[in-house]
């Protein structure tokens, strides 16, 4: 809670420090002074900074983010569909990325030390990890969209008038989903892979692994023990890492013109649409706090030694 409070406060003042007047940019020229004042009042920009701040925080408490300058609509109405769009690429992307990354890390970690699998795996993972997400996105666009022409690389596709859930449950949406989702997965795999690998490498020399091997179980089963124990550090890292990953997703959303919350955040900042930007940051902070909570809870499930009092 404290974190969320501090973030929203900082965000509020940061946007106020920027020495520009949104009305200049967003309001039609030639508007009368009275009309401008009326607009400022509606946007909550009148009164001293403290009055504005208190009004804003008071609104937050009841879930009111104010109105967007740009869309001239409540922030919630603007952001909610964007959040849903982001979740479509973020949640499956992160889950699949973690799953694939951890599996590959398991394989690379269990491979013979110094062998081709280990060397190759680490090399490729490090290269991808060092690649900025927009390069991954552009490479995917270049190959599958421009060169092969298999998949669209722009936007979410035409809804064809569908609304509600049906907006997402159609073929057109799915083919638009593939490339950005793929980019998120690829972007997220290497860190999972490397972390899982180092965990497995560490665990494979532990005493209990030797005893498991002596029990005469299959090699896969021995590896499973090492992997099961390596999951613990992976989970502690995974959820907080979502914060960093969100930065990567922002970029991917822009590359693929995916109308998600990350892209909206960047647009809002350039448009000086403070309420939208503040709300987007606020929601990201909430997500990160929730992610940390989820990490703690998952860890307690995975490691019997962790007890919450």
């Amino acid at each position, binding site marked *: 809670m404290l974190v969320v409070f501090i973030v929203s406060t900082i965000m509020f003042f940061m946007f106020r420090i920027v020495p520009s007047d949104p009305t200049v940019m967003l309001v039609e020229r030639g508007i009368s002074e009275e009309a401008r004042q009326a607009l400022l009042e509606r946007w909550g920009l009148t009164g001293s900074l403290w009055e504005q701040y208190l009004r804003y925080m008071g609104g937050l408490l009841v879930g009111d983010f104010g109105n967007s300058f740009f869309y001239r609509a409540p922030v919630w109405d603007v952001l909610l569909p964007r959040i849903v769009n982001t979740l479509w690429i973020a949640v499956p992307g992160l889950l699949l990325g973690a799953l694939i990354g951890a599996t590959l890390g398991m394989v690379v970690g269990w491979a013979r030390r110094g062998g081709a699998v280990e060397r190759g795996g680490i090399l490729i993972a490090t290269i991808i990890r060092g690649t900025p997400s927009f390069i991954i996105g552009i490479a995917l666009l270049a190959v599958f969209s421009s060169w092969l022409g298999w998949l669209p690389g722009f936007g979410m596709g035409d809804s064809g008038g569908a609304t509600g859930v049906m907006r997402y449950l159609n073929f057109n949406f799915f083919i638009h989903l593939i490339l950005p989702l793929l980019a998120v997965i690829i972007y997220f795999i290497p860190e999972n892979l490397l972390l899982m690998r180092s965990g497995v490498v560490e665990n494979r020399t532990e005493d*209990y692994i030797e005893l*498991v091997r002596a029990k*005469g179980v299959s090699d896969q089963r021995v590896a499973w023990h090492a992997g*099961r124990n390596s999951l613990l550090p992976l989970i502690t890292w995974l959820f907080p890492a979502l914060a960093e990953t969100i930065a990567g997703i922002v970029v991917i959303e822009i590359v693929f013109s995916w109308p998600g919350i990350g892209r909206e955040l960047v647009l809002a900042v350039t448009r000086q649409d403070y309420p939208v930007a503040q709300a987007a940051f606020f929601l990201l902070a909430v997500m990160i706090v929730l992610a940390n909570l989820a990490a703690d809870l998952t860890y307690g499930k995975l*490691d019997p030694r962790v007890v919450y009092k």
Partner: protein
Amino acid sequence: MDEAAESDFDRRLNSKQPIHLSVKELKVVYHTNFGPFHAVAGISFDVRPGSVLGLVGESGCGKSTVIKALLRLLPESSRTEGRVLLDGIDVLGMDSRSLRHVRWNQIALITQGAMNALDPVIRVGDQIVESIRAHEDVDYATAWRRSESLFALVGLPTQRLREFPHQFSGGMKQRAVIAMALSLNAGLLLADEPTTALDPIMQDQIMSRLRKVQDLLHRSMILVTHDIGLVAENCDEVAVMYAGQIVEKGPVVEVLVRPRHPYTIGLHNAFPRMPEENEERPPLISIAGSLPNLLEPFANVGELRLFPEAPQLAHEHTFVAAGEAPPVIVGNDCLEPAHHVDTQGL
């Protein structure tokens, strides 16, 4: 599985015979960055069915390497030669399928349970069940009930099967490891320093438990330790290892009461004794020097330790010259009477 089938499973396991282990010219070389390291330099010994062999020696003499070599648990960077015969069948030449069958079914391992021998995130009971179900086609419930009887056998309350290793004390973990080693009633038990990390009272409890189990099940066993007292109490025969070799072996009474090899004498002296009544406390004689460098086999045997507290030994009986292996003494017959050992005054 019904009661009849379950008791059939138990009967089948309980009718397993102890194994005759015969190790011939076992050599283990670790490949290190500094060249080959000769951890075990061609040793031979037998464990007769139902008997207990004590394998003693100080840290680094190759005891644990021998144990791991018997189960083929050594890292890939090592090379093992020689023959390990289980009732005449060579373990070292086996394919991985047969090896899996041998592990736990015929040779079970008791490691230092107090440390990290059990998987920390799996329930202890499930780890025992895993060892059973890896080899026997029985359902989970049957394996669990067998785990319960094993826990009872080692003196642990059966409800603790549901707990995790960190909820166990060191002694309890050791008992759990022993229970697991008995899960398939393997014909040969390898106990690798089962009590080293425990306090003396717990050591005694564990060893008497192990003796009871041994009286009940008559397994062949190798007990690896650096504690001569444990050997005296628990073993039928003893093999003394030094620098990757067995320097003396034979029945416990003979080797311990009348040690012949200078190293055995040193080991004997280094073990504290309770003074008799009205007797002064006997001096504790440590073994001077350190192990020879095993990167080159026996190039440095000239540096084998002397016995400063027994000058007559040091003076007369320096070990063999460089380049030769130390002599081996079996029973009371000195195989290579390269030197004379004067036990007077020791």
